């Protein structure tokens, strides 16, 4: 379970997140981190990962504060996948995952057998990239690189998985593939998974929970179907949108255009202002 309490983050004198508390995120669930560009999503993720030191507040993972934890202690529990894909790297997929596993000692390393070549190969097989094990990272497509990155994160057996726009370089089928895998791994490993997403429909389809940010503040927080609403989209993104169930019952966001200026007052929104459609199951 992950809890954020009064988290404050600043770069120098520029405050990005003035103080953010969110409801507890349960193990085995995927939380989508939504919000427009510059709303502080990536910064929040980095702060939770410990790559940016928060000015104040707590990041509690099962009650233990990650902000106070040392580098290695935190790395035993948290895995973070940044947006940028590495370039010009002369490493095979297998080697990159081995390096991720052996960079710093893991709890019970060797015991679970994922830190040797065979264990890594099994992990890659599970992610569907076993046949790429000996290929160089540079020769992979964006989607394959992202899956290799996911393997680098999962090999560390984290309890908290943080992904910054893992789908941005991927085509449609890879987007679904990655999200399906994430759901499967999140469930089977009991992870708390926090993902920065741009695509609202992907969030509606694949996430359980949602945090919506605007200007570093939490604009909405709750089950994804209750958070992604016409009112919230107008307030946070400044667009006029409808959420309608498709013929198979999946909720879909349809954007009609920019919202009238009065809707973007930035206040937290709990209520849907538009006509509320029944929202189908998110799987």
């Amino acid at each position, binding site marked *: 379970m992950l809890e954020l309490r009064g988290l404050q983050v600043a770069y120098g004198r520029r405050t990005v997140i003035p103080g953010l508390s969110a409801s507890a995120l349960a193990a085995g669930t995927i939380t989508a981190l939504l919000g427009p560009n510059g709303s502080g999503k990536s910064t929040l993720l*980095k702060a939770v*990962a*410990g*790559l940016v030191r928060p000015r104040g507040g707590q990041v509690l993972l099962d009650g233990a504060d990650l902000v106070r934890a040392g*580098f*290695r202690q*935190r*790395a*035993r529990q*948290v*895995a*973070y*996948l*940044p947006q*940028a894909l*590495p*370039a*010009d*790297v*002369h*490493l*095979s997929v*297998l*080697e*990159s995952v081995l*390096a*991720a596993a*052996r*960079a*710093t000692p893991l709890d019970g390393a060797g015991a679970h057998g994922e830190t*040797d*070549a*065979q264990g890594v*190969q*099994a992990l*890659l*097989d599970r992610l*569907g*990239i*076993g*046949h790429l*094990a*000996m290929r160089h990272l540079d020769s992979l497509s964006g*989607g*394959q690189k992202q*899956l290799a*990155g996911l393997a*680098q*994160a999962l090999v*560390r057996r984290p309890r908290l998985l*943080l992904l910054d726009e893992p789908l941005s370089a991927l085509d449609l*089928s*890879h987007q679904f*593939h990655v999200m399906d895998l994430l759901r499967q791994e999140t469930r089977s490993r009991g992870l708390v998974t926090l993902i920065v997403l741009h695509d609202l429909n992907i969030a509606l389809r694949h996430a359980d929970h949602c945090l919506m940010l605007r200007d570093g503040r939490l604009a909405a927080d709750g089950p994804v179907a209750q958070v992604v609403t016409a009112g919230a989209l107008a307030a946070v993104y400044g667009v006029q949108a409808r959420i309608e169930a498709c013929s198979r019952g999946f909720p879909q966001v349809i954007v009609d255009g920019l919202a009238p200026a009065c809707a973007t007052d930035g206040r937290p929104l709990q209520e849907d202002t538009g006509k509320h459609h029944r929202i189908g199951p998110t799987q």
Partner: protein
Amino acid sequence: MPARAAPAGAGVPAAAAYARLLRRRKLALLGLLALIAASLLLDFTTGAYGLGPGELLRTLADPAGADPTTRVVVWDIRLPSAVMAAVVGAALGLAGSEMQTILNNPLASPFTLGLSAAAAFGASLVIVLDIGIPGVPVAWTVAANAFAFALLSALLLHAVARWGRIDTSGVVLFGIALVFSSNALVSLVQFLAQAEALQGLVFWTLGSLSRAGWPQVGALALAVAAMLPLSLRDAWQLTAIRLGEDRAGSFGIDVRRLHLRTLARISLLAGLAVSFVGTIGFVGLVAPHIARRLFGEDHRYYLPGSALVGALVLSLASLASKNVMPGVVVPVGIVTALVGIPFFLAVILRRPAR
């Protein structure tokens, strides 16, 4: 479409292929060692003083029974300079590979980013003006100054790269500025120097192995022998940092500390090498590129590989420096520059525009 179904049991062949790859890399390291030995032998048997290989080897095996002049040529001139070439090459190769990794820059090397030039300036202060770090034994003042100035420039680079938030080409430009300013300062020292000190300084700024004696060879060999295990202890972290600093940080690597540790090692190797043989350029740039081709970037193999490639390259350059002009030993720094500059340009031109 992503391939979802991997062939059943694919795990074992890939693990076996990986094991084979590691075996090949170990063999490649051994192969390099053999080539270095061969090059050393050739380098040792080549020179202005016409001695047959048989006589040379006899003198090597039994110095006491040999002709005194031959003994001096073999033991005090040929052998130390041949060994020094390999040791300096190893130091620069190792320093270059670590530098390219932590600065994430294929153009990084002690020479191209100004560490060697700064070390040269530090050393020239002692040689010409007798300005050194107080408290250091006289025999080591040149080396200590060279190290101190190399470290200073390395820290400057580190600060600029980390806090200046400039990209890799910005770091290279800053390094070039460091080279220019250090060279200008060395010129100033030369301008102030007495005639005999000047001659020594000029010879030394060209980069020359001919003044190497056993104490210097021993000191530098010791430094390489001490630094390589420390580098290898960081091998997994240095490999992981190739995946990006944020990613490395999330693996629990203290990236800042890793940078500082590595820069200290680089400065020691580059500073000592410069203080003994002057600025020998491009070996530290070329060796990592060749090593990367041979070993990939698993730093357990890449780092020692780069050291060995550096040793081989400089040993061959030393051999070439005796054969460019008959009867004259050209300073080896000139040879490495002539070979290295086209290579440097090739690296720049091959880099994809981003």
